[in-house]
């Protein structure tokens, strides 16, 4: 049978396959390059960048839980200029779009970071982090109230022609409202979901297991939550969705696509098995072929529900 067409589009961004990596789980590109050929990925999504250098949280920053992990890295990073200097030359080498995950300590930062990055051709699209559970300012606060959520997106929209992809917070009763708001504010796609606000306490020391006290839960544990959020959002918006949350096997990615995701991101699974993205790409292709689809995009939204 013919090879199904693997490519998809997110706004003007063309991905050779629907699989990217989740921000924060793949560094800035070079870290996994010995193990993963970046040319095989649909897109590379880098760790969150704000205008200036940022130190992040104290350690411990991660903690393993049943079927998942907590993280409270706190978005340390080199800032926009540092990113351009340190990582853009490396990322340029590949024939793969780069999605830069951006965040801000205040509303203005979201505009600033785009201004600093937008001239770089290597930066293909922006994922707007409105849902980081691990920073005091910004992040999650913007993602759980539609007003500030909309304002950030509008602001970023004004600063760039490149695709913008708000990343939604999972801890809301009605994600459809946010999906719709993103659409109304001119976003090109949405990402679902960020890690879920959570906590673990050491019963001997009585101290939280993370220096930041709370963190974000990711991994297979949260997949059923993410699938529901994607399904809910897909009913509320026509925007393409990048689905993520506990993707470990091709079947998981396919489940996201059936629920309504146009693309998927492999996150925590990179830590467990860096070959996950390969397996997922191959598995999606095999599934599309077996189902007789001409294109993997035929998988999207096929859920009978």
């Amino acid at each position: 049978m013919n090879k199904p067409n693997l490519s998809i589009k997110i706004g003007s961004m063309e991905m050779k396959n629907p699989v990217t990596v989740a921000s924060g789980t793949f560094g800035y590109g070079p870290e996994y390059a010995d193990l993963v050929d970046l040319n095989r990925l649909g897109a590379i999504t880098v760790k969150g960048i704000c205008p200036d250098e940022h130190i992040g949280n104290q350690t411990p920053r991660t903690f393993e839980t049943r079927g998942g992990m907590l993280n409270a890295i706190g978005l340390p990073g080199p800032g926009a200029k540092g990113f351009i200097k340190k990582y853009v030359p490396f990322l340029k080498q590949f024939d793969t779009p780069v999605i830069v995950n951006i965040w801000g300590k205040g509303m203005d930062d979201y505009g600033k970071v785009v201004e600093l990055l937008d001239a770089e051709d290597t930066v293909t699209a922006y994922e707007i982090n409105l849902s980081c559970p691990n920073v005091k300012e910004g992040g999650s606060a913007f993602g759980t109230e539609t007003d500030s959520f909309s304002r950030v997106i509008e602001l970023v929209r004004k600063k760039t022609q490149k695709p913008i992809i708000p990343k939604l917070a999972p801890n809301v009763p009605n994600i459809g409202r946010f999906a719709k708001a993103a659409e109304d504010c001119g976003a090109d796609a949405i990402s679902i979901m960020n890690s879920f606000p959570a906590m673990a306490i050491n019963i001997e020391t009585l101290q939280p297991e993370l220096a930041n006290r709370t963190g974000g839960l990711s991994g297979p544990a949260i997949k059923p939550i993410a699938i529901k959020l994607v399904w809910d959002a897909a009913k509320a918006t026509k925007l393409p969705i990048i689905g993520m949350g506990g993707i470990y096997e091709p079947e998981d990615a396919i489940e996201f696509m059936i629920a309504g995701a146009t693309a998927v991101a492999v996150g925590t699974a990179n830590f467990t098995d860096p070959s996950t993205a390969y397996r997922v790409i191959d598995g999606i292709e095999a599934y599309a072929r077996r189902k007789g689809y001409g294109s993997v995009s035929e998988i999207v939204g096929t859920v009978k529900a």
Partner: protein
Amino acid sequence: MKQEKTTVVEHHNFQGEYRILRLSAPQIGPMVKPGQFLHLLIPHYDRSILRRPFSIYKADADGVSILYKPVGRGTEAMRILRVGDPVDIIGPLGNGYPQQAEGKIPVLVAGGYGNAALFLKAKELPVKGVAFFGGRTAQDILCVDEFKELGWDVRPTTNDGSLGTAGLVTDAFDPWMKEQNIESLELFVCGPNPMLKAMGDRAIERGFTAWLSMDKNMACGVGACLTCVIKRQTEQGWEWARCCKDGPVFESREILWDE
């Protein structure tokens, strides 16, 4: 750095609570430098999300060995691994110990699995000096005969006095140090944090070199997640350094110890 989906070749008790696990690793084995580590996942029995880091005790063209002690969920699950069982490893990881500087006298200081972590370095070093090994009891001091065979002057200390000097490693090291040409010493250290700090403090105070292998919990193991960071001194203050990628070995002066 390679990922190998491989199998268990050997697995049995080694000494005390430590067990030895040998894995087939035709790709990783030949690449190993002393002081590097493996990031290990048990795909079969255990359903852990995170790999676990282990220093490479031995390595050759066919495979690698680690010495480990069951202390928690992951290492307990490793206990039931049998010959032929699947194992997934990434390695060799980290920088490892540097080449010995010209004219220096090497000194090994280790505790717990640190003895295993230093073994390849002990073998590689052209000059064999003194090795200070500390542990709670004689049972906790690994590989003494092996180090002796390589030509090292092994000086054990145990908390209970069941082997060598009674007390901490420093109780054997400090008197010995006084008799040395201090600046010529180059320490290779791997052990629990207090041991690392004690040796680091002496190195700074007395002006010798000490390479410390830091033990920090890890997630990715390859430098991507920023879990395993420690504070590294810079001219302006400090920056984060990743134990997995920029370390695990740091010179004592690089490290800014948290209170």
